[in-house]
């Protein structure tokens, strides 16, 4: 399995997304760098709509992830319920 990553801006909007990723993905590595947060995982990384919605206290739309995304690596799956990066 190889690594996928998601990089988000280091800002208020991204915090609940990072928190949700941390909750839902075992073994992710979260690195804080100037202005950005790099989140790495083996093979798969999922942002779940329901987890983020729970954390922000409103209906969070998966496409909102685009607002704070700096970069990614992996095959993207974007559905109503989740945003997923995979690489076999």
């Amino acid at each position, binding site marked *: 399995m*190889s*690594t*996928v*990553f998601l*990089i988000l*801006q280091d800002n208020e909007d991204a915090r609940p997304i990072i928190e949700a990723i941390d909750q839902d993905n075992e073994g992710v590595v979260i690195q804080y*760098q*100037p*202005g*950005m947060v790099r989140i790495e995982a083996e093979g798969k990384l999922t942002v779940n709509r329901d987890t983020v919605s729970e954390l922000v206290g409103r209906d969070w739309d*998966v*496409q*909102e992830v*685009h*607002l*704070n*995304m*700096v*970069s*990614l*690596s992996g*095959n*993207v799956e*974007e*559905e*109503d319920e989740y945003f997923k990066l995979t*690489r*076999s």
Partner: protein
Amino acid sequence: MAAKRLNMRKRYEALTRGMGWETTHQPMDKVFPYDTYEGIKIKDWDKWEDPFRLAVDSYWKYQAEKDKKLYAIMDSFAQNNGQLNLSDARYINAMKLFIQGVTPLEYGAHRHYAHLGRHFRGEGARVACQMQSIDELRHAQTQIHTLSHYNKHFNGMHDPWHMSDRVWYLSVPKSYFEDAMTGGPFEFITSVSFAFEYVLTNLLFVPFMSGAAFNGDQATVTFGFSAQSDESRHMTLGLEIIKFMVEQHEDNLPIVQRFIDKHFWRAYRVLGLVAMMQDYMLPNSPMSWKAAWDIYFTENCSALFDDLGRYGLRMPKYHEVATAEAEHLSHQVWATFYNYGHAAAFHTWMPDVKKMDWLSEKYPNTFDEYYRPRFETFREMEAAGERHYINGLPQLCQVCQIPMVFTDVLNDPTMVSRRVSIHNNSKYHTCGDGCRDIFEFEPEKYIQAWLPVHQIYQGNCGGSEVSEVLDWYNFQPEDGGEYVGSADHQRWQEWKGTAESVSDDRTQAHAS
């Protein structure tokens, strides 16, 4: 009766597919004349998987939200003279190169994705390209607007479009992009969406922008990361198009591999400028070019190509040369600009002791052995009042158009690498195997190149004197040359109230 719910995929399909039709009054091949001649065979455009699913109204909503934030920061940056928070005014020279060399590419991408957005036969691919086209316009314009404030307080950014069409070192990015634009639509999209954006631009927009944040440039990191939020969509398009082409027909594989090989090399050569920005122009660099290369190219791309291996694709040709060069690239490029600094619209300088030590630490295999001695000599000459410049004009590579300064890092890093090809009884020089192969595959294309040095010799650039050429570039005397003592430097000292730091720098130079 309650209506059934449409999921994102179905809904997006209804919103973007099925609006086109098989034309009957005009032949389809006349309506879409460009998407077959490269030899890429598409059996079924409907198999196109949309890389992302943003309906136009959501696009407006999200993009307006991003821009609202970005412009608020831009305004406050200008009102509060945010330039005062920079770690050092040397930093701004990277942004000069950015607006001269990168912003015009964003604009070129904007126009040419519209070409694809009109000319691909598949509706899904067209919509994706149109979205990218308008995004790229966003990037060009937000860069102009952000850097507008810097232009009011620093030299060298005053005429970027004029410069982009004329200046010797800016023909490097310009010729790369025009190479892609003058190819067919599949070549262009492989070049820009895949080779440039998926494989390489992380190197510019992630570590460099993080470096901008590290050096107090709130404005640039904001536009940089805001652009990256679009870029993530673009990268996804890059990966999708590659998979789509190779899945559609087995004959496509060798063509796609050739596109990848060529454009990886072309785009990589342009990134030599970024290597120097990263290592030399960022006063405090959070990550060296080499470290960034290891993470964003070596690691990430081996994972990517492991994945693409199932389609028969392999790593781009000469990637191992690029990786070997990672330990040399920034030093060689910076030395070149240092030497030709009087003919550039940004300042150059020799790194101070602290920076040299940082370079030694980050480049243990190369810096002390090959570059430090030369750089220390330059410092000594500068201290003696004989700042080193080269007055002649360099020979340029026929393909990448960079002066022939790269060395043969795999065999002898002290020997300049050069290749010669003969075409129609004329000799053409290239800087290595990567550029040579590109030349030899399409010599008729590359002999057309508008090579700045040749053009100067032919009298097409304002005159034969360097000063006449610089006038023609619309360079002002205060735009280039040594940073120490420059108008930018003096103004920075006035702002910071540290007028004596010129002599500080000199003292340091002596000490080293």
